[in-house]
């Protein structure tokens, strides 16, 4: 809502406050003033209305005109470059000595050898902000209507001294979608009187009922419909002041009839519609629901196909307007219109909203119907329009408008008492102060001791309950005046759940080993949604979830894996020469096996990582380590060690990963994720180099985690280490041998470490050597060589038999 302060002044006197000060007070009381626009940023002086007596071509220049302009006390010769200057026009003349915005001083000059004593101005030259200049006035000089006085200062005529407050209205304050509503608000905030417009109309001795009747099919959808007949109207431009106000409100002036309906729309917040009575064609108005697939050509020339839920105004036969949304072309007011049927009505907000939304026809009018208008001002607004049509279109208003009225005028009562209000606010406001606040708001009330019974005026449809009144009292009392307190209830320690603490600890771990947290989008593309899905998810037969109405193809599907979008960020960095990246992300993926979603998908918390490029580099020592499988595996192993969970890596094949460098992770035989190198083909498609990834099901892992730290005695007796190298077939996996030893019942074995892997010279084809350090320990005593030798022999025998291994000497 754009509020012109010059317009507002007609109803409420805000004294000497600057627009900025007034805006600040309004903002603090509940309506955010989002901006303040001055029609002209700077003042113009000595600019007056001039009459162009003659306009001849400039003797020395094709594009210039030589004008003789009467400015009241003298006639000035002025050279003008505007293409639209003509004799007989009334124009804005900056006389010699005038100063235009930008400190542009007007002097007598010679232009191409001819004397020019001033300047004929455009609106822009007068400092009018482009936003307020109607399209048809943007080019060339401004031309006044004929009825302005020559010599008059243009400042007031063009509303140049106006400031406009831009209200960012919340949906509840529909009352301030009208100048009168704003006036009530300002009157309450400043505690100054309110002057409401006089709407008296002189009618002629003819009855409306001889011209039309009104019927409403469903009073619930149309609680009020008033039809006023105004005869003998003269279509012409509206008065300059009205045009100025409309422009300030962001509405383009058209002609007096349209302008008057728009003026009352802004003044009262009441949408009106003017029909050309003669084009209505019948003596009947019927408001009804549209017939399914009925059509109407609206004012914008478009044919609209209607649904039964739409509401239409008809002439008894066919639609002549789409109720509350837009008029019909068949009954539109034209320059030839003589008699007007003026509609002032109240329609059901939901019906208007649905129709306007479906047809994409949101307008100043539909917006007000949707948000709710003051039912007790509908008729008054109609009368106001009649009065203005009488005055500015020479119309004759008929007696007794045709009205169907089902409005419930009962004012709502809200009860409250002083203590309840103070308890809710934490204040100590007196009953007298509350009385005064209600007086300022112009709410009627009864009070018994400290108990109030407040009648809520119909213009404030947003107030229905006690809490609404708490807000009214508080905002007039001033939120600034509320004390600062903390709750006085018994306090209790706050804290994280076990899972939340673990999540934080895991993030800390990952960061301390060199990973950086990334946050990517949950919505991804069709191409990426199917990539890199973990086997634990694959096995659940999930269906990707698509948005029916995505904003873009890039963000169309809910992610099934964090990795694709994470890899996109690696590519983004790589494209910017940032090739060394180690990212992790902790977030949800969305799992459902329904093809048509009927319930919420399962949200599965996952931890994903993607690493590429150089891992560490010590440049002057020429030491450089590039990210590889085992670096990433080490990070993941460290994580499980940190969580005190035994993890097993099993060779696996997973789509989009290098078939020979990929493993699934298992804890207690439960599949908890995977790790691997991105398949070189996929890496190439995504503009990535060698990239290594992991993806873990955190939900499973957090559930498996047990809080079971306990002290164990530190061994008192030394351990003994024996090294051994086995020669085995190439396809034997190192960990299998380690596990065989560790899980055998051979005594005293505490740990098996692999310390060398060798293939090549001195070994047969397809064989490799795996060397292990085997640790033995007895918690009770120092081990003797004989005991260790015996255990060691058993191990050698076990491995030789199980893996067809030989000892490498």
């Amino acid at each position, binding site marked *: 809502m754009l509020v012109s302060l010059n317009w507002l002044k007609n109803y409420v006197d805000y004294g000497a406050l600057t627009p900025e000060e007034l805006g600040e007070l309004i903002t603090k009381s509940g309506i955010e003033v989002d901006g303040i626009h001055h029609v002209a940023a700077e003042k113009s002086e000595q600019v007056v209305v001039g009459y162009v007596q003659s306009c001849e071509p400039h003797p020395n220049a094709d594009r210039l005109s030589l004008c003789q302009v009467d400015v009241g006390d003298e006639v000035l010769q002025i050279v003008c470059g505007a293409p639209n200057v003509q004799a007989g026009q009334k124009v804005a003349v900056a006389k010699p000595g005038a100063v235009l915005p930008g400190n542009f001083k007007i002097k007598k000059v010679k232009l191409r050898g001819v004397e020019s004593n001033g300047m004929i101005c455009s609106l822009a030259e007068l400092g009018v902000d482009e936003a307020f200049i109607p399209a048809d006035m943007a080019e060339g000089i401004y031309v006044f209507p004929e009825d302005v006085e020559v010599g008059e200062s243009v400042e007031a005529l063009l509303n140049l001294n106006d400031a406009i407050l831009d209200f960012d209205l919340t949906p509840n304050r529909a009352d301030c979608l009208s100048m009168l509503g704003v006036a009530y608000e300002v009157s309450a905030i400043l505690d100054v009187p309110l002057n409401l417009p006089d709407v008296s109309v002189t009618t002629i001795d003819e009855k409306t009922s001889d011209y039309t009747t009104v019927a409403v099919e469903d009073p619930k959808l149309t609680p009020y419909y008033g039809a006023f007949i105004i005869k003998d109207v003269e279509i012409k431009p509206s008065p300059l002041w009205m045009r100025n106000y409309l422009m300030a409100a962001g509405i383009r002036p058209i002609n007096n009839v349209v302008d008057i309906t728009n003026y009352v729309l802004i003044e009262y917040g009441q949408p009106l519609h003017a029909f050309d009575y003669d084009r209505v064609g019948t003596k009947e108005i019927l408001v009804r629901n549209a017939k399914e697939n009925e059509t109407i050509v609206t004012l914008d020339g478009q044919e609209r196909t209607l649904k039964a839920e739409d509401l239409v105004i008809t002439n008894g036969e066919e639609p002549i307007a789409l109720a509350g949304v837009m008029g019909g072309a068949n009954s539109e007011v034209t320059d030839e219109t003589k008699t007007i049927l003026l509609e002032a009505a109240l329609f059901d907000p939901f019906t208007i909203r649905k129709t306007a939304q479906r047809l994409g026809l949101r307008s100043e009018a539909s917006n007000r119907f949707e948000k709710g208008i003051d039912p007790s001002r509908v008729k008054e607004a109609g009368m106001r329009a009649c009065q203005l049509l009488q005055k500015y279109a020479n119309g004759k208003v008929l007696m007794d408008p045709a009205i169907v009225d089902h409005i419930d005028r009962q004012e709502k009562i809200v009860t409250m008492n002083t203590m309840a209000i103070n308890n809710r606010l934490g204040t100590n406001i007196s009953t007298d102060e509350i009385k005064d606040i209600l007086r300022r708001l112009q709410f009627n009330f009864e009070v018994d001791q400290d108990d109030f019974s407040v009648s809520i005026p119909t213009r404030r449809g947003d107030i229905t309950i006690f*809490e609404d009144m708490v807000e009214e009292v508080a905002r007039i009392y001033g939120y600034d005046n509320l004390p600062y307190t903390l709750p006085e209830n018994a306090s209790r320690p706050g804290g994280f759940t076990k899972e939340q603490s673990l999540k934080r600890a895991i993030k800390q771990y990952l960061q301390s080993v060199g990973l950086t947290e990334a946050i990517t989008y949950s919505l991804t593309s069709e191409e990426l949604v199917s990539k890199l899905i973990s086997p634990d998810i694959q096995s659940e037969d999930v269906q990707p979830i698509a948005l029916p109405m995505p904003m873009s193809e890039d963000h169309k599907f809910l992610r099934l894996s964090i990795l694709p979008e994470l890899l996109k960020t690696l590519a983004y960095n790589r494209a*910017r020469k940032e090739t060394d990246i180690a*990212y992790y992300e902790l977030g949800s993926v*969305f799992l459902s096996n329904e093809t048509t979603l009927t319930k919420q998908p399962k949200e599965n918390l996952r931890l994903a990582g993607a690493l590429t490029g150089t891992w560490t580099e*010590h440049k002057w020592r020429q030491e450089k380590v590039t990210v590889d499988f085992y670096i990433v595996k080490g990070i993941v192993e460290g994580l499980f060690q940190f969580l005190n969970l035994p993890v097993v890596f099993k060779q696996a094949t997973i789509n989009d990963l290098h078939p020979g460098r990929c493993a699934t992770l298992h804890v207690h035989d439960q599949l908890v994720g995977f790790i691997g190198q991105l398949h070189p083909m996929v890496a190439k498609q995504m503009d990535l180099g060698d990239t290594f990834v992991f993806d873990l099901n955190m939900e499973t892992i957090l559930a498996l985690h047990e809080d079971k730290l306990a002290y164990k005695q530190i061994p008192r007796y030394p351990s003994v280490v024996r090294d051994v190298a086995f020669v085995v077939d190439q396809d034997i996996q190192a960990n299998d041998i380690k596990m065989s030893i560790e899980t055998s019942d051979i005594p005293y074995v505490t740990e098996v470490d692999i310390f060398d892997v060798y293939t090549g010279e001195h070994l047969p084809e397809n064989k490799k050597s795996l060397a292990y350090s085997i640790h033995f320990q007895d918690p009770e005593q120092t081990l003797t060589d004989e005991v260790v030798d015996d255990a060691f022999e058993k191990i050698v025998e076990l491995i030789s038999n199980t893996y067809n291994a030989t000892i490498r000497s």
Partner: protein
Amino acid sequence: MQDQLASLQEEALAKVEEVSSLDELQQLNVTYLGRKGSLTSVLRGMGKLSPEERPVIGQLANKVRETITQAIEAKKATIEAELLEHQLAEETIDVTLPGRPVQVGGSHILTAVIEEIEDLFIGLGYEVREGPEVETDYYNFEALNLPKGHPARDMQDSFYLTNELLLRTHTSPVQARTMEELKGREPVRMICPGKVYRRDSDDATHSHQFTQIEGLYVDKNVRMSDLKGTLDQFAKKIFGEDREIRLRPSFFPFTEPSVEMDISCKVCSGKGCSVCKQTGWIEILGAGMVHPKVLEMAGYDSKVYSGFAFGMGPDRIAMLKYGIDDIRQFYLNDIRFLQQFHHA
């Protein structure tokens, strides 16, 4: 023999004085004090001495041995000290050469902001709750006093998956879920950080995905001044002790009265500048007293219980706090952006 011992001592001490290496010193030790050394050979003549002379000479010989030993030990210490000094001099390195870099990562700036806020409210006795990102229409809107067809639904254009499911447009549904879970029990003190989604085209100030933190406090006798005091603590902790807050009336369907909270502009200290659009204030969050309908729907008697709720945007807070001018930076994950915030 006394003279022999005296000259032996003199000679030995002179030699010790001359040597410059540990090897030579060891050699001297053998030469004079060893089993076949000079002192031993002088003492071989002891047998020829009278019983009266023997102890005298013996005593003298011990003294000579002791004197030479001491001299050797002293010389040894000197040489060792010199050697060590030499070694240390040789081991001197250029300490200005860079050390081996340690790879350290860090939190995303949004996580850092969220964790800072979590820690503050945990200190005030709150717990942290989480909720689903795909919400039902009921929890996202209806349970928050936004029935179907409510004009305020326009304020938040949503990504619907079906008629009844959507990507949550705010973290407020967790309010309703938490109260419902506690079924009228008190107190409710929780915050809920998380991702939210709206149908906005991504630009410098809009993102279709962003983060929010919801807060809720429900108990008996909770007052609006408690909300004001709590938000003041929040603002001072997060933005600095010298920040002022101001509450303005506003509208949210799930609170009544509703407020917007502004903080005084840090750039101009409230005088007015381009950052605060000349107002001296910057909008930070929305809040209010929980609407009685929301309490009732979740099973709390609104005549007995009252409460406040607030919702803030970590994205906006981070942008204001660090002067970030484009919200998309948070989701592009440019390493040069993320690393700027990896400092204590």
